[in-house]
């Protein structure tokens, strides 16, 4: 696709604290179009907090986020989605009592327009839009390989399928940047491998991926570049091979493990 390699997201000195806890300290990073960018770090390093700032759930205490050349409005999650940032959650957040299909259809909300009048009159435009929503949702069900669960409630899906459904729902918003918060958590080896293939496919389809993950093998095999957070600060950013051998990174992980 066009524009591969240009800057998609630029975070400048993002800070966030909760009372005395400084969850993010002047974090700056740039993500380029078309890459898979890894964000790693020990527990409590601030990775999820960064996601929350990026997607408008938290308001950063300082710094600036530039997305696709324009400033991102703080604390407006629906606008972040509108701009093309989609995410999944560390603790899966599906609409449990909606079917898998409906979950994905909700993801189309931001790209569709039907209002009350259209919904009530169900005019030609509304019918066409509704049909397109269904078509796209079905496509995505197949894309993440859970088409056979289309009519099951999300809460009744297996853990792995729930993770996949959450990704499909995020993709339904037509994102430019897909942010995945520990998608492999709780998955076995086969499931993780399938996930790797899925994420690679998503990137190849032109979506930039930001990946938080504890599974080092997955991160190292998948990511073009990796940033490491420790105690809210970015301590390293490079290609996986370099990051893996960076003494500060080893120290952060070992220090965390010993403490």
């Amino acid at each position, binding site marked *: 696709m066009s524009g591969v390699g240009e800057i998609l997201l630029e975070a400048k000195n993002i800070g966030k604290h909760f009372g005395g806890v400084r969850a993010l300290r002047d974090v700056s990073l740039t993500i380029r179009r078309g890459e898979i960018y890894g964000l790693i770090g020990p527990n409590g390093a601030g990775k999820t907090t960064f996601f929350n700032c990026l997607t408008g759930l938290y308001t950063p205490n300082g710094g600036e986020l530039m997305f696709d050349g324009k400033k991102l409005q703080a604390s407006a999650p629906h606008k972040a989605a509108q701009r093309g940032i*989609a995410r999944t959650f560390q603790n899966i*957040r599906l609409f449990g*009592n909606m079917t898998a299909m409906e979950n994905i259809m*909700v993801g189309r909300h*931001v790209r569709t327009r039907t209002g009350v009048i259209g919904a009530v009159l169900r005019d030609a435009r509304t019918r066409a*839009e*509704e049909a397109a929503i269904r078509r796209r949702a079905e496509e995505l069900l197949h894309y993440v390989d859970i088409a056979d669960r289309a009519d099951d409630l999300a809460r009744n899906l297996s853990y792995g399928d729930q993770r996949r459904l959450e990704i499909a729902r995020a993709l339904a918003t037509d994102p430019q940047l897909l942010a995945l918060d520990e998608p492999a958590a709780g998955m076995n080896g086969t499931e993780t491998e399938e996930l790797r293939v899925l994420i690679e496919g998503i990137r190849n389809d032109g979506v930039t991926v930001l990946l938080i993950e504890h599974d080092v093998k997955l991160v190292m095999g998948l990511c073009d570049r990796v940033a490491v957070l420790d105690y809210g600060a970015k301590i390293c950013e490079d290609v996986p091979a370099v990051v893996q051998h960076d003494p500060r990174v080893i120290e952060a992980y070992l220090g965390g493990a010993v403490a």
Partner: protein
Amino acid sequence: MIDFAALKRDRRAALAATAGLGVLLALAPFLIGAAAGATWLRILDFALLYIMLALGLNIVVGFAGLLDMGYIAFYGVGAYLYALLASPHFGLHWPVWAILPTGALVAGLFGVLLGAPTLRLRGDYLAIVTLGFGEIIRIFLNNLNAPINITNGPQGISGIDPIHFGSVSLAKPIDIFGFSLPSLHAYYYLFLLLALGIVFVTIRLENSRIGRAWVAIREDEIAAKACGINTRNIKLLAFAMGASFGGVAGGLFAGFQAFVSPESFSLMESVMVLCMVVLGGMGNIFGVILGGALLTILPEVFRHSAGPVQQAIFGKVLLDPEALRMLLFGLALIVVMLYRPAGLWPSTRRRQEFKGSAA
């Protein structure tokens, strides 16, 4: 493979059921009028008003998951609006076709007004704030008779124009080709028409982008935001839609009764409508209709039978029928909620939900 034969059979069965229901609804006032008399016909008319209210509240509570305990205020707004625009009180006599849409609109605005400050609240906090709002409206209605007399205070407004279309008034028997349609029957058909309209609108909304957004907010507000739903607007829309149904029902009520006073819009009424929604089956339109009908009719059955039944069994009336009525009513609520926690006729969604949590 699609079994076309079965599909055709199903469609035929559905058509037959719909036609049967249609005939039943059309004949209902005559059957009930003949079997039970005008008192029960009146109760039937009221049941339709309560069904409209329950359907409105269902949008807020059942779909969007926002616990609104002051819903009756919108009924009050609709009713007073009708009373002010069509009575000797201000000497205004607007036609119905102008009042009802205005009532829907004004009640909808009140819905937004109530919704706006509560957007960040959920569950019990929201319940308390909305409860306060409902009471505030009632207290305003009670006290807005001085310094300028707007609502006529606790005495209420009487002499309200009956619902009429041109020279045809529903308060008097209507002559149709030599056949005379009694007033209560005429009101029944009007209310039925509007209730069906509300059912139609609700079903259309439920199966749309808007309806899905409501349910998504109920299920997980943060995830809904992350999906790009402007939760503020969509919640306000739920409040406005629900309130506007209440406003329409209120207007009809005022025209039907020819009298409104603040005591018709007490907290107890809000609780009653909420019971209809919960007991019938939150989120399922047909369950809510059932809840509305049952909870209007059952207390009346208790009221009318409590005295005579005691007389027959004990030879005298031991317990005050009015007290016994509420007792039985409470008992019925408890039994239903114990044995059918998802409501009498829950949505498939909620049925699975309760099955899941029980397992």
